[in-house]
């Protein structure tokens, strides 16, 4: 299977994602340019972190107007896996492919540090090989990562198994203290209705080798790969 990693002007984790996919995981991964209009040949897509268009206006807002985003929309509606990491998550909410939005951190400061997240749903390709309640040690690095959605929306996300990850303490408790940015209901990541589009603020690609302090991030990519392999078995005609 072939992974694609989109580079927008200002993306700065695109190379890190390619590194993790190619070297830590041994996958085939290709760069995708923001002005491309097609994702032909790509099986799973990553929108990486960074400061696309300087995060000007709103994080992710300008990148969401890129030509590639039309292709991403089609890709997503074909049920293929899309993972937005950090700025990629922000772009997906701006493109309205994911619900809610990301606000300035409650402390108003950029924060770069390790965090714990708890797997809340296994309905997504990126978590389907995990178990609910699994804990992952993943770094965060953002200034605008406070997840916001209205109370009803949060409830309906919860109901639909669309909250993918929550910030928690090392014991797995989603406490106030473990919430690094004031996210509503400690939400660290959410999924689309179909589950195939996932966004999260923490950086799995920065937790892709023990040398970096954690390899927990690999599970997201491996899970998606397994999901795609099963999908190919179930529906060989649709495999790409």
């Amino acid at each position, binding site marked *: 299977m072939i992974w694609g990693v989109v580079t927008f*002007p200002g993306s700065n984790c695109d*190379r*890190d994602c390619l590194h993790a996919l190619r070297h830590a995981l041994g996958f085939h991964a290709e760069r995708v340019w923001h002005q491309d209009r097609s994702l032909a040949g790509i099986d799973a897509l990553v929108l990486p972190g960074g400061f696309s268009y*300087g*995060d000007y206006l709103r994080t992710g807002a300008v990148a969401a107007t890129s030509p590639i985003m039309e292709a991403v929309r089609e890709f997503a509606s074909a049920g293929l896996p899309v993972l937005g990491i950090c700025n990629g998550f922000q772009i997906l909410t701006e493109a309205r492919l994911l619900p809610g939005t990301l606000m300035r951190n409650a402390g108003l400061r*950029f924060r*770069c540090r390790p965090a714990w997240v708890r797997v809340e749903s296994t309905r997504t390709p990126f978590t389907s090989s995990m178990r609910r309640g699994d804990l992952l040690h993943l770094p965060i*690095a953002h200034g605008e990562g406070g997840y916001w959605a209205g109370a009803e929306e949060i409830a309906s996300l919860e109901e639909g198994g669309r909250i993918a990850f929550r910030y928690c303490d090392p014991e797995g408790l989603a406490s106030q203290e473990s919430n690094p940015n004031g996210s509503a209901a400690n939400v660290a990541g959410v999924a689309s209705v179909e589950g195939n589009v996932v966004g999260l603020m923490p950086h799995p690609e*920065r937790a892709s080798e023990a040398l970096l302090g954690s390899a927990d991030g690999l599970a997201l990519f491996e899970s998606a790969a397994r999901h795609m392999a099963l999908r190919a078995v179930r529906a060989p005609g649709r495999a790409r």
Partner: protein
Amino acid sequence: MIPAAVSDAAARAGLSPRDYGEACRRLGRDPNPIEALMIGVMWSEHCGYKHSKKALKRLPSDSPRVLGGPGENAGVVAITPQWALAFKMESHNHPSAVDPYNGAATGIGGIIRDVLAMGARPVALLDSLRFGPLEEPRSRRLFDGVVAGIAGYGNAIGVPTVGGEVVAESCYRDNPLVNVACLGLVRTDRVARSAASGPGNAVVYAGARTGRDGIGGAAFASAELDEGRHSLDRASVQMGDPFTGKSLIEATLEALETGVVIALQDMGAAGLTCAASEMSARGGVGMTIDLDLIPLREEGMRPEEILLSESQERMLLVAGREDAERVAAIYHRWGLAAQVIGAVTAQPRLRITSLGREIVDLPPELVASAPEYDPPVCPPEDLASRWGMDPAAVAAPAGAVLLSLLGHPDVASKRAVFEQYDHMVGVRTIVPPGGDAAVLRLLEAAPLGLALSADGNSRWCRADPRRGAALCVLEAAANLACVGAEPLAVTDCLNFGNPERPEVFWAFREVIDGISDACRALGIPVIGGNVSFYNEAEGGGDRAVFPTPVIGMVGLVEEVAGRPWTGFRRDGNVVLLVGHGGTTLCATLYEKAAGSAPRGRPSDPALGESAATLSCIREAVRLGLVESAHDCSDGGLLVALAEECVLGRRGAEVTMALDHRTCFGEGPARFVVSVRPRHAEELAAVAASRGVPVTVLGRTGGEALRVSPPESCTCGESIDLAVESLTAAWGGLEA
């Protein structure tokens, strides 16, 4: 007598009558007003290094690994036959004092582009910061603004900030120091140059468009030329745009990858004037430039504004005529301006046209080489009496002093600062900030890595600039040794007051000699750096900053996995002090915390013995004997012990004399290490073979740091402090 007309012309160009006369003499005529402005800016201290150039030649700059030393935009040192590093530090003191956010942000942008100009991908930043007392609102505001600016630019551009320092001292109240360093990586066969060559080749402008940025900050106070029209609209500070900066990095590396770029340089201070004249002068060629072709952001810019604009995120390149379009297309694809604006000429003349008229015709060499001065030196009158002073004494028991030193801003945790910096982007950061040196892995040459540290200590340098500067080099090397890194290169930033004052210039020369002494003893080349003079408030004298050299050091780590770290790692390990004894309480943090000015002299750097100790630690780390290592720096031995407890979240039981000098005295190259009991002997052997003393201090374990004096000695009260209280004391500094 200087005729009034001449002194007027000189003043308009920001030149002294003497320099103006020199320019006329070298030129063989009077420069026209625009030419005079260009010379004025390039001959400013900032661009021209008039006072420092001669003295800087004393620094040792060669080593077999050096591929490019001082003079280029950044120094380059080979790491392996295939890969080299580029490394450079720069000050942005004055801009940060005026506008902390934008000043610090553009400092980061500028240093990144110096490294980029060597063809290197920037992979790490360091920031060394000095302010007045942080309890004072003004210093606090500067501090917050500077940290926010570094975060704002560094995080967005995607280069991790992996280390630095924060120091509070009243001499920086009016003159904060913001020194930033950047490390880059480049293939040895792809090191880029700034020397223009090849008559007929195209001169290409690339990056952001030119606006009226920073012109008010440059040397011309041109009421007359300006007719006062724009002054209100115009910002005298530069604004950075990390978004454009990021695209500029990617586009430039892509352009260099094609192999057709012959030379390049950042357009930083003095903008186009500086880049065009330096690139021509280095290549011994000339250039023609048509200002009508420069991509502008604003309408109605005058030629001198275009020539001197300090708009950020711009590069000047030279490429073959037929390759220029290809280069420009790469920049266009990244959404940047790119335009052929002129050509290289064989004749060494910088000829600039505007609206079809030639407005400048200057020898690049003249513009790029400011006069060199030999300023008078004189040691301060009170030096001998200061050296004769005993250190300040504090009456409190050692335990109480320890807690107050741990909470001192210079020592306390910097987490609140470095968490605002993305220190992980790039997936290279193996040892993050928070300990001694940071370690980055080399993805391109696994399992190798690079260790980085930035260190200065102006208390020492104020007391004795030569010793102090040598001690700063040793401290950087000590931080590197803690992770087993062999030093490869030094870059330095020298921050001083007014060099026209003989005591200031004396201290400057002494500092250079001190750095040279230590770098020679350790075999480390100084591959580049920066000088910042005039860091003194109106009134001079004691309103000047202490002599403040900041040393940026990079070293090679042979195997990034399994490095020891600063905190104690497990219970039951043996705690040892490694190093020679010579400590003193003179000019230490202990004195500073007691509110005293530096008295007496700092320790002798004992370079031979210190080098042996450093080599011993590196070897012990390399052999895998060491579980934690931390050098004794600010606050001495007891502070180092406490920090290892805090960072390791465990206590220790230690026996040592508890007089203040033993506890808090500072001296060169001393380490607190912890080793598994079975390795203690081997470590002792490594030390013995180098003649390095080792003292067993005690054992790790428990929930408190317990220190008691040896039975033979009745000096001082025992200490029993819970790690929790140490942590509470140390965790204080909120950014």
